[in-house]
């Protein structure tokens, strides 16, 4: 790919101190997002995928590593980032019920980013808010209503509208539809895909839903206990998964059609559970659940290699040559 990189994450670490020890929520993660691209980050709870998104947004600063956005270093908390950059980088949170202030009207919520960045002449804010509402297909009279009265789909549309208000170039989508029903999810996803084309957006799409990922992302990375264990272009990723964890996940995805069933790799039955963040297994953190476990797996952390072109994997089954 020769396209321009909009976001580059290198060696990112985020550790949290707790009373019982250090939680390595993100442990040496590197990836990049190209212009107009959607990169998917998949993982189960505790994999650290949301933390990656939050560190990129600066909700908390990284413990180590660098984040470069449009050529600028943003390895810091949001409070210390230049205002101009804040405008270009936005997020849609998982649960719109908690990401929209229940005591502020939809109009006020949409107006805030406009006001902070002075994006309209005084007196024109209402008009801009109405335009935003047309865009997210909400009736204009909803401007004076509170989010609590709306359905999940409408709420998430407002959250998307708020993210779009500053005309960003990059949006972190942190499980934007996992709180929604499928019939609503479809609507929101289509809205997001349309806006991507319309506004030249790049997405970091975080989800636990592999089927959804297949339909939205150009590249997919899979996370397990704070590390990216496999990353590849979407078609390659789904037709030729390498890491045993990827295969286990794919085997476990509930599907509807026969075609989907056929796509699943050789069946790897899911066993065991993701380890607690405080006692991550030594070596490859997946080894206690891995059907192909070898001696080396419990001793040496596998490093990420480019096994095939643009297909990265971190597993001792695929030694670097």
């Amino acid at each position, binding site marked *: 790919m020769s396209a321009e990189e909009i976001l580059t994450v290198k060696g990112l670490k985020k550790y949290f101190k707790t009373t019982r020890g250090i939680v390595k929520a993100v442990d040496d993660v590197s990836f990049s997002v190209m212009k107009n691209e959607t990169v998917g980050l998949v993982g189960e709870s505790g994999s650290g995928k949301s933390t990656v998104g939050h560190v990129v*947004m*600066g*909700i908390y600063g990284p413990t180590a590593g660098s984040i470069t956005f449009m050529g600028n270093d943003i390895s810091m908390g*949001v*409070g210390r980032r230049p*205002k101009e950059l*804040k*405008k270009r*980088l*936005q*997020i849609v*949170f*998982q*649960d719109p019920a*908690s*990401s*929209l*202030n*229940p*005591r*502020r*009207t*939809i*109009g*006020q919520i*949409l*107006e*805030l*980013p406009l006001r*902070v*960045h002075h994006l309209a002449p*005084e*007196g024109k*804010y*209402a008009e801009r*808010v*109405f335009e935003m509402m047309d865009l997210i297909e909400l009736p204009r009279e909803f*401007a*004076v*209503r*509170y989010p*609590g*009265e709306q359905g999940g789909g409408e709420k998430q549309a407002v*959250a998307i509208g*708020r993210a779009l208000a*500053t005309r960003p170039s990059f949006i972190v989508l942190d499980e934007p539809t996992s709180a929604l029903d499928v019939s609503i999810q479809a609507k929101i996803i289509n809205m997001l895909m349309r806006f991507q084309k319309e506004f030249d957006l790049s997405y970091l799409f975080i989800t636990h839903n592999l089927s959804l990922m297949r339909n939205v992302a150009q590249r997919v990375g899979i996370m397990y206990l704070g590390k990216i264990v496999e990353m590849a272009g979407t078609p390659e990723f789904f037709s030729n998964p390498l890491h045993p964890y990827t295969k286990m996940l794919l085997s476990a995805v509930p599907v509807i059609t026969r075609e989907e069933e056929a796509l699943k790799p050789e069946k790897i039955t899911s066993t065991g559970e993701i380890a607690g963040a405080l006692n991550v297994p030594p070596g490859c953190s997946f080894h206690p659940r891995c059907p192909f476990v070898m001696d080396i797996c419990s001793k040496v952390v596998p490093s990420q290699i480019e096994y095939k072109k643009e297909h990265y994997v971190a597993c001792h089954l695929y030694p670097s040559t």
Partner: protein
Amino acid sequence: MRRATSHGRFDYRKSWHKFSRNYVSVVGLGVVLLVAFLAIFASYVTLYPSHAEFYVNFPEAREPPNWAHLFGTDQFGRDVLTRIVFGFRYSLMMAIVVLSLVVAPGVVLGLVAGYYRGGKVDMAIMRTADIFLAVPPLVLALSICSVLTPSVFNAMMAVSLMWWPWYTRLVYSIASSLRNEAFVQAAEIAGASPFHIIFREILPNCLGPILTKMTLDAGWVILIGASLSFVGLGAQPPTPDLGTMVSDGAKLLPEQWWISIFPALTIVLVILGFNLLGDGVRDMFSAETV
């Protein structure tokens, strides 16, 4: 005008519906309004306004309740009912003065401590509040009053001095949990200032509990005021204060029971009124149940 499009309308009908669906709240509102009405127009609605403060008529002293004096007369021949109605003035004034002095600083301190949760500001504010809360409120109020000259005004000041931490603690607990909510993070990402986040994002979510507590506290402040004057550390005779009246009459128990019992029952009525009203206010701010 410029924000007319985005401000939420306060939906009076819906709020009233939520408030009044529990009929006892309406009873509470009625009691509070009645007490307020009587207090404001005390000079017009009472039969013997001159009995309110200094007045002596020994021939009519200690009369049990009768048609001329529904609640009887006290040891100086003053009409107990008249004095109770005038007593409402002091009670309500106490509540109004204390709450208006206490709520704003208490709330702001709680918001600031909650926003800077875990930092030095939080430490300083909340530790100080904890020290004030380490002793029962009545005891602290009594001890502050005891070093001052007893009067209604000093009682108000004493109660105000020790009441703010309750609001700080209440608001702190809400604010510090909201601090991590996605909507606060979203505002930070949008680039909003701490001022905006504290007062526009967090504060509106504390209003329900604050108003509920204010309503309930109105009753408790009145009670503390009455307790102070009951002991003799608040309002002084001949001020018609409910607490003073109870303590004066208590010396004449059990024979001349009406002198103390009626003011005492009135205190109960006022507190009950504010308690019921407070429940209604809480319902008004509760989320939809559907």
